[in-house]
């Protein structure tokens, strides 16, 4: 455990001063950022989109996009990097400063083997070749804790899981033993458990090799978990800088406080105690018609023609009462999304039945089907794509009404305005196009659109996962509010347990197409009975540095387990 105060005496490893980056379009991406990273230190750059955190990192390694103009200074051990010509920079990149990116799926060359790519990284700096290179590659893979590395060398990226890919990316970065490692949202694209493993790995690498790490993230949990020191950015400027514990303990700047406030939290250990006690059977009359019923539902993916049929959902039985919110949680591939799409009638059913308000959705035909559909709505994960780019906001919201020819043109427009109001968007937005809106605003529009026909059932598939924390908080709050007011039932799908915890009454934990545990949110999160649920909960990085060391060892166990 290096102590920040201890290292400030020597000249810092990285020293960024008054960095400003501007593009053709008016608002500069980075106004003025100064950051220092000391030997063996882990510094977190925190901020929401538009804060310029990634730009800063890219400026350090000299990979700014074309047309970006950077001023100020970036010093590595006192050597100025900013404005060095390409050939010079190449000598630093990978050799002394390395970078890990957000999206492991695309960060590796899909048509080259892992071994080749590591070899290439070594070659780049006239490193070892042939047998020696191979040996080194194996060591690297071992270092990032990839099982039987010799064999993996011959693998192509697509043969590895997301986590393994990210480990390979790390291995590449570490290939030439850099002094500074830039990690840009290294775990954002990963499942919680994998994320936990990678975070743990990063820490161990730091401990083992003493490599300094500058980590860029928007996730306070990650920060609390990994960073020694935090630098908070907003709109290209540093708003606050402090040691992690101090920052969490008493955030000085309003924005920082807001950020922390916005982070959804799971019941802490103390809360859990009494959480167990409360009863997990919702009080409802047995004969009441459920809003949604899954009865031994099965869904297959892959076509019979290709010969490979794999179950996406495998015998799920769930019941959602009217006016309740059912949270579906699970990691990628757990089948939660499929369940949601099933309820919306978007995927063919292989077995069992899905009943919406007591009626079988799949078998319904013709007008009955249309009527059924009118009663449910769907909110898609990606606000980018969920609105037709050619439609104005008004048209988008109005479409369901147009489809079912509800009321006169006038009534519809009235409805649009009231919906916009309901999702707290100014009526003036009606004429705008989706691309003129921010992600959060788009998601609100999507919500409004879903509510147009006062559905009895709303299916929300990861509605906030693409949003910034603060925006996410806004939307969730809005959602909860609307759900209270309009009293529709809702299937809320998310990989983020904290988010689900915030909105859901009932929770079903899914794994590999099966429900491993379900019950009231408080109960499931408070007193999980199933190991997997516990694992998930344990893996969530708690936005509180004090619990870091507590969870640390727990993670290691898991890692060995997996």
């Amino acid at each position: 455990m290096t102590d920040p105060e201890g290292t400030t005496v020597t000249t810092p490893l990285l020293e960024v001063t008054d960095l400003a980056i501007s593009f053709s379009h008016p608002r500069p991406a980075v106004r003025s950022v100064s950051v220092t990273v000391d030997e063996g230190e882990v510094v977190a750059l925190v901020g929401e989109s538009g804060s310029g955190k990634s730009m800063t990192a890219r400026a350090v390694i000299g990979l700014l996009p074309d047309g970006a103009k950077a001023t100020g200074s970036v010093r590595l051990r006192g050597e100025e990097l900013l404005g060095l010509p390409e050939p010079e920079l190449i000598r630093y990149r990978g050799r002394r400063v390395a970078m890990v990116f957000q999206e492991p799926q695309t960060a590796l060359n899909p048509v080259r083997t892992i071994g080749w790519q590591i070899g290439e990284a070594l070659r780049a700096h006239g490193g070892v070749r042939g047998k020696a290179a191979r040996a080194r590659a194996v060591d690297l893979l071992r270092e990032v804790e990839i099982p039987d590395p010799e064999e993996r060398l011959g693998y192509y990226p697509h043969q590895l899981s997301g986590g393994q890919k990210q480990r390979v990316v790390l291995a590449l970065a570490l290939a030439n033993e850099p002094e500074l490692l830039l990690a840009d949202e290294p775990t954002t694209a990963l499942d919680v458990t994998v994320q936990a493993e990678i975070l743990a790995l990063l820490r161990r690498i730091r401990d083992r090799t003493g490599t300094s790490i500058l980590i860029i993230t928007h996730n306070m949990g990650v920060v609390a978990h990994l960073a020694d020191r935090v630098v908070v950015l907003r709109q290209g400027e540093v708003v606050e800088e402090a040691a992690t514990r101090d920052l969490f303990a008493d955030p000085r700047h309003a924005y920082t406080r807001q950020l922390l406030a916005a982070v959804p939290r799971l019941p802490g250990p103390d809360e859990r105690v009494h959480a167990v006690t409360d009863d997990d059977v919702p009080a409802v009359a047995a004969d009441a018609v459920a809003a949604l019923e899954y009865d031994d539902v099965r869904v297959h993916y892959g076509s019979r023609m290709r010969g490979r049929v794999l179950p996406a959902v495998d015998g799920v039985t769930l019941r959602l009462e009217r006016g309740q919110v059912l949270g579906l949680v699970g990691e990628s591939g757990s089948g939660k999304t499929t369940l949601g799409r099933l309820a919306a009638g978007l995927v063919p059913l292989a077995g069992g039945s899905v009943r919406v308000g007591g009626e079988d959705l799949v078998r319904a035909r013709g007008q009955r089907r249309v009527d059924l559909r009118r009663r449910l709505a769907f909110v898609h994960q990606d606000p980018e794509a969920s609105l037709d780019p050619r439609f104005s906001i008004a048209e988008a919201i109005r479409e369901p009404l147009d489809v079912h020819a509800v009321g006169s043109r006038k009534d519809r427009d009235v409805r649009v305005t009231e919906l916009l109001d309901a999702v707290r968007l100014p009526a003036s937005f009606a004429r705008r196009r989706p691309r003129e809106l921010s992600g959060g605003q788009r998601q609100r529009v999507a919500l409004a659109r879903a509510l147009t026909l006062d559905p009895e059932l709303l299916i929300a598939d990861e509605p906030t996962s693409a949003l910034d924390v603060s925006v996410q908080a806004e939307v969730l709050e809005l959602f909860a509010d609307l759900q209270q007011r309009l009293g529709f039932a809702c299937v809320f799908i998310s990989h983020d347990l904290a988010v689900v915890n915030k909105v859901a009454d009932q929770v079903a934990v899914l794994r590999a197409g099966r429900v491993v545990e379900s019950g009231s949110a408080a109960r499931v999160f408070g007193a999980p009975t199933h190991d997997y649920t516990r694992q998930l909960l344990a893996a969530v990085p708690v936005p509180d540095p004090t619990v870091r060391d507590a969870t640390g060892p727990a993670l290691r166990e898991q890692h060995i387990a997996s």
Partner: protein
Amino acid sequence: MGHYLLRRLPSALVVLAIASFGIFALVRMVPGDPVSSLAGPDATPEARAAIRADLGLDQPLVTQYVHWLGRLAHGDFGTSYRIGGQVKDLVADGAVNTIVLTVTALLLAAIVALVASVLAVVLDNRWVNAALSFGNTLAIALPTFVTGLVLILLFAVVFPVLPAGGTPPDGFLARPDIAAQYLLLPAVCLALGAGAALTRFLTEALRTELRQPYVTTARALGIPRRRIVLTQALRNALPSAVTVLGIQFGTLLGGAVLVEAIFTWPGLGGLIEEAISGRDYPLVQVLLLLSVVVFVAIQLLTDVIHAWLDPRVRIGGAS
């Protein structure tokens, strides 16, 4: 790879089946018949009747179709009405010339495209780019029949350094150096358009690849851009390029008809024109069917190569 072919094969066969019938029927719907083009202006009715019988055209269509298929199955393509020779031989002779021409053109196009696009991307100098894009736009914009004639006029008539047309007198193998000269003008003429299109595509593909995250990764590792282009981007752009190459081959075959006419290159183009205008049913049928076969084959081939070049298709994902 195997299952790949297997999956494609049925639909390919369907296409061929439909094609064979469609062609057979269409060919016979065409006004004007082989007899009159054989008999010539001064033939007597009995003469034409005799010829008709001689060609077996007096039998019902269905029988003719069945017979035709039957013979095809046994590799007997029939004999040409007009030319008299075995259709097999005729097609073979023409095919050799056409293939030599188109394949050469294809190679030229591919090589030029490869070099030009890599140059354009590696030294992404605005002047080089401007020059290249101007060049290949012009190359696409100039009709084959124009470039062909200009080439002849320049290199055969004004400065008679190259033959104006025809195939090398003693084959392609006997005197390669001579053959090369006979091949040069038509091949270049044919390759121009395809080469330009290919260059355009490849350059674009490379640029797109260079925008991919893995390139950023590589650059962040300090690998020089040029090396990335050559060892990574190119390798990634290749599969789609192959597909385009396949399409281009089709268009080349089409262009060959014209180029062969301009350079009096005795290939399939001339043959098919002659066959159709002579209503030489056996020849027409086989030639048309052949072009379908070639098309289908190329589609299959490109698919397979594509699959083979792309590990994601070749090796199923593990996770």
